[in-house]
């Protein structure tokens, strides 16, 4: 993602609806700069004949990393397009092809960009044509989107299966790193391992590259190291009042290296983030020195309007200190085990359950709200995505039963066409004033 929303010369492709956030961390700027540099390098590699995989966020990128296959994550590209204020242009292209405007946009925005007759005018020179498409069948739209995409570019497509848990051991976050065999049903892990083997063979066949077990083990080690820093950062923010940073600082700085996970660079950024936040905390510096309210943002980031969050810091001393991005990075990624492929399966088999399945998600949100000294919760619900909603009734009930007031906002995280900034601000201000009892500073 990128919060630079300036409308560059993109031929009328931008619709400036949102505001960029103000970057406060040196590491945030460094991460964003690197991402742009990395993408330029990726484009160059693809121009020189290297493969390019387009993958969904819940596809095991560690495999691609171990095989040195360049890849772009569907949702990352969507967030970049959205931050560049180009989502309306691309989504209109998709609609012109006959696709309904209210179909899931978060996962189809990148496909929409494939219909651009001048793809080179896209963000950062545009997304090169992929040579492979891989998704996981975690919702009914995935097979549609990725098959359409693959056919658009006449490239092979691999769908990974998705299984459903029938057992729900409590407090998943405690068992996930080491006791994951107790957490996830063995048949689900078995199937995912088989599926991963099929994916590796598919990639070997279609790219000519070889899977390196040695490199894979190193990738897995690096991911755990990165997760350990994310955990320390989350815990540090959680215990520090006023918070040294807010989610406008952390979302990008966590997610850019998340898409680069399994590299030393990603570990270094995670470490730098921790060190910079630590330094701020030691100096008593805060994202909002006048912090009066700590807020939790549940749901996807508002990619086209990351500046939205900072309005409430200025006006109310209300700071969004928590998002799923650092929360999951802290609790959901670390996995330790002897068999790296099965260990990788344990990272992905439950990702969907942790995030979108009540009561696993609701229990975790309550735990995180307590841990992060949260005063109120704002839940962004995307009406076009059933999967992403994840039991909003149960989440709200669990949080409110635990004493955390909840505001549910209905909006699409990438489609600025339906965003009403003043109405959304008004809803949140009303929540702050009436439910949390805070007045403008």
């Amino acid at each position, binding site marked *: 993602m990128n919060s630079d929303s300036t409308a560059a010369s993109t031929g009328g492709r931008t619709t400036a609806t949102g505001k960029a956030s103000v970057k406060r961390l040196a590491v945030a700027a460094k991460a964003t700069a690197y991402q742009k540099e990395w993408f330029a390098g990726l484009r160059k590699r693809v121009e020189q004949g290297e493969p390019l995989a387009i993958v969904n966020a819940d596809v095991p990128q560690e495999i691609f990393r171990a095989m040195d296959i360049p890849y772009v994550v569907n949702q990352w590209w969507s967030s970049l397009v959205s931050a560049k204020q180009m989502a309306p242009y691309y989504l209109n292209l998709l609609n012109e*092809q*006959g*696709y*309904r405007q*209210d*179909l*899931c946009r978060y996962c189809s925005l990148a496909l929409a960009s494939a219909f651009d007759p001048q793809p080179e005018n896209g963000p950062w020179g545009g997304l090169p044509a992929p040579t492979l498409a891989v998704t996981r*069948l*975690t*919702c*009914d*739209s995935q*097979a*549609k*989107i990725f*098959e*359409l995409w693959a*056919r658009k570019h006449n490239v092979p497509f691999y*769908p990974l*299966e998705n*299984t*459903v848990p*029938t057992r*729900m051991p409590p407090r998943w976050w405690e068992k996930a790193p080491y006791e994951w065999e107790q957490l996830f049903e063995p*048949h689900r892990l078995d*199937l995912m391992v*088989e*599926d991963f083997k*099929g994916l590796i063979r598919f990639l070997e066949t279609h790219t000519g590259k070889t899977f390196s077990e040695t490199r894979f083990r190193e990738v897995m080690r690096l991911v755990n190291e990165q997760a350990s820093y994310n955990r320390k950062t989350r815990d540090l923010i959680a215990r520090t009042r006023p918070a040294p940073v807010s989610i406008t600082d952390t979302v990008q700085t966590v997610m850019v290296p998340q898409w680069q996970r399994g590299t030393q660079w990603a570990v270094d950024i995670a470490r730098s983030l921790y060190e910079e936040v630590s330094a701020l905390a030691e100096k008593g510096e805060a994202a909002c020195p006048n912090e009066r309210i700590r807020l939790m943002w549940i749901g996807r980031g508002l990619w086209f309007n990351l500046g939205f969050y900072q309005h409430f810091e200025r006006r109310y001393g209300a700071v969004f200190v928590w998002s799923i991005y650092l929360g999951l990075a802290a609790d959901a990624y670390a996995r330790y085990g002897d068999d790296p492929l099965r260990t990788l399966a344990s990272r992905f088999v439950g990702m969907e359950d942790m995030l*979108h*399945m*009540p*009561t696993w998600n*609701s229990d975790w949100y309550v735990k995180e709200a307590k841990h992060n000294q949260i005063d109120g919760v704002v839940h962004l*619900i*995307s*009406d*076009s*995505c*059933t*999967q992403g*909603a994840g*039991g*909003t*009734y*149960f989440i709200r*009930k*669990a949080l409110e039963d635990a004493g955390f007031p909840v505001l549910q906002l*209905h909006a699409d995280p990438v489609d600025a066409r339906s965003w009403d900034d003043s109405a959304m601000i008004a809803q949140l201000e009303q929540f702050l004033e009436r439910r949390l009892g805070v007045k403008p500073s």
Partner: protein
Amino acid sequence: MTANAKVSALDLLTEAWDRRHQIALEWQREGGRVVGCLGEEVPEELLIAAGCLPVRIVGADETGTPLADQYLERGFDPYVRARFEPIVNGTYRYVDHLIISNSSDALIRVYYYLRAIRSMEPEKPVPDLTFYDMLHTPSRMSALYNRDRTRELKKRIESWIGREITRDDLAQAIEVCNEYRRLLSRVSELRTAREPKLTGTQALRIFRASQVMPRAECGALLRRLLAEAEQGPPRHGIRLFVAGSAQDQTDLYELAEECGAVVVGEDHEWGGRLIRPLTDPSADPIDAIVDRYHLRLPASTKATVSQRVRALQEEVSACRAQAVLFFIRESDDAPSWDVPEQRSMLDALGIPSLLIDRQPYRVEREPLRERIRMFVESVRNDAVRGRD
């Protein structure tokens, strides 16, 4: 139900649908178990082999969906809401167990939410839940996974009834299922004949009744119905294929046929998908059951766009449809993804189509009547011009 010789078999099947809850309660009074089935992949063969009555969960007729609206997000389509409502409002309180199959993302979430209700609000009348995690990708990996899940489901059902389901039980159940499906297939032939002897509305009434009554009893009525229908008058109208969202109510078919069409086929779960394929009686029963549900053409929720384009082309051709009506409910995303390419394919074949989307669960007839009438009329005019 008494098979009154003076009442037509079609009327008795229609009545069975209307009396579906009483039929299930009567089954229970006679000592049988009733198992609710949500999703089109619940293997009824296993339930019938266990002596249970499988009943498909049907949308709430007229009560609205206040509880579903409370629990389900706006992204759930109205058909899912309509079936969620009677589960949480107690209409299906009587079912001994509820099995949900992995037939769509929405149904997976319905399982999660019902499970959460049972956990967080145990006073709500949600039945005992089982999830049947049948995968749909056409691979050996999925086929083996499905066999294991099916054996697990068999064991679970055995725990309910307190005895083993034997190979003979399964063989008999497979035969019962195959027999009513063969009879439904003949019903379908009457409807797709060059001169249809049944309307689409009648066919839908027959198909859906088969899912809420004892299958052997249904078979007996179907045999009578076939004899009666073959003597009936031919039905005239534009041969219309209905694609898109599932129809467990007859409103849409009635409206289309009032507008001059005969619905000769559909691609949703309450039509031809019930019939094909049969369960192979010569194979190992678990293999045969899995293959039936796994290897058949996937529904839109589990298919790629290309698969659905090919499927529609084959189905439209098989029933010699003159036109296609795409009827898609609000938030029913899977068929919406299929529509643009399906319509392109139909255009290339010279088959006209009409898209009606963002619809509620129950069809609002009057706002649609003129559109459908004009569409049918234009197809008729084109057909006449073509003959000239």
